[in-house]
């Protein structure tokens, strides 16, 4: 038998990244724990820039005067409410299709933040509508479908908490989330498909925006701020859910040993 060739000294290598790497709660927990502080930094940075431009650089609107400045929180909140719903539905379905419990936990983590942005969109919209339209509310297609979005978020949360078996609850939630997803394009196209009091699209992916550049910049910066915020809070909640659900698991035990009660 020939002598084996000397082998290179083994070094500790991390296993290659795969799509499923962070499906493991322990790895999800570790990664998000490192990301959260940076996400908060981004949130504050974008918000500071966006609010500064929105209030001190962007000019007064010719028609709406300074009431229009609500736009810098209203539009980002509305966009987040729709985007987060799609993300929630996506992860819920992934959790169902691949029996990936971390994905289902992530969907549950997204729901309250999505609901919060929906409430904020409705609230800021009402306060903007009062001085400009003369009313806090109207049952037009955009406002009504956004209200329905809120009910869908709350319905999802109520449903998953009503079913005792956690994985069955996840699957039921996934079904509700998936079916409800049709509402998001309805909200988006509502101002095009129906005659609404809510104004039509000012920004599109294909045409030039019909809005002053500084206003647009401020709005986009605030959107990035809301996005970073959403990531931060959703990750915080997802980590909590992971520790709750996996209480007896080895990785949670090791967490305790490593970091005490923190």
């Amino acid at each position: 038998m020939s002598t084996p060739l000397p082998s290179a000294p083994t070094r500790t290598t991390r296993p290659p990244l795969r799509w499923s790497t962070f499906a493991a709660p322990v790895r999800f927990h570790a990664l998000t724990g490192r990301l959260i502080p940076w996400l908060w930094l981004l949130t504050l940075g974008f918000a500071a820039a966006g609010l500064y431009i929105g209030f001190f650089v962007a000019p007064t609107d010719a028609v709406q005067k300074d009431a229009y400045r609500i736009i810098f929180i209203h539009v980002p909140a509305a966009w987040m409410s729709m985007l987060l719903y799609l993300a929630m539905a996506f992860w819920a379905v992934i959790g169902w299709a691949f029996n990936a419990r971390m994905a289902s936990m992530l969907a549950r983590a997204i729901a309250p933040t999505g609901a919060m942005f929906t409430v904020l969109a409705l609230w800021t919209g009402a306060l903007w509508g009062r001085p400009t339209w003369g009313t806090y509310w109207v049952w037009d297609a955009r406002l009504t479908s956004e209200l329905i979005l809120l009910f869908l978020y709350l319905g999802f949360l109520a449903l998953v908490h009503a079913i005792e078996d956690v994985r069955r609850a996840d699957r039921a939630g996934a079904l509700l989330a998936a079916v409800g997803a049709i509402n998001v394009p309805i909200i988006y196209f509502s101002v095009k498909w129906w005659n609404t009091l809510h104004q039509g699209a000012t920004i599109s992916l294909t045409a030039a925006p019909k809005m002053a550049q500084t206003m647009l910049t401020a709005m986009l910066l605030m959107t990035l701020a809301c996005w970073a915020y959403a990531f931060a809070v959703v990750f915080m909640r997802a980590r909590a859910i992971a520790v709750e659900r996996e209480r007896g698991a080895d990785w949670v035990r090791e967490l305790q040993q490593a970091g005490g009660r923190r």
Partner: protein
Amino acid sequence: MNWGSASAFWEMGGYGLYVWGSYGVALGLMLIEPALAALRYRAARRAAADLDDDPETDA
């Protein structure tokens, strides 16, 4: 700069109630939400620790 004075800024051309009512609620919600999430995480870690403190039984 858009504002002649600090009071002009707060007044927002007469729309102060609506503008600050919007941003005030936004700030409030965006402070409460992460606080609740942090509390939830801490409670989860505590519950996990308490589980370990109990005398363990074989599954």
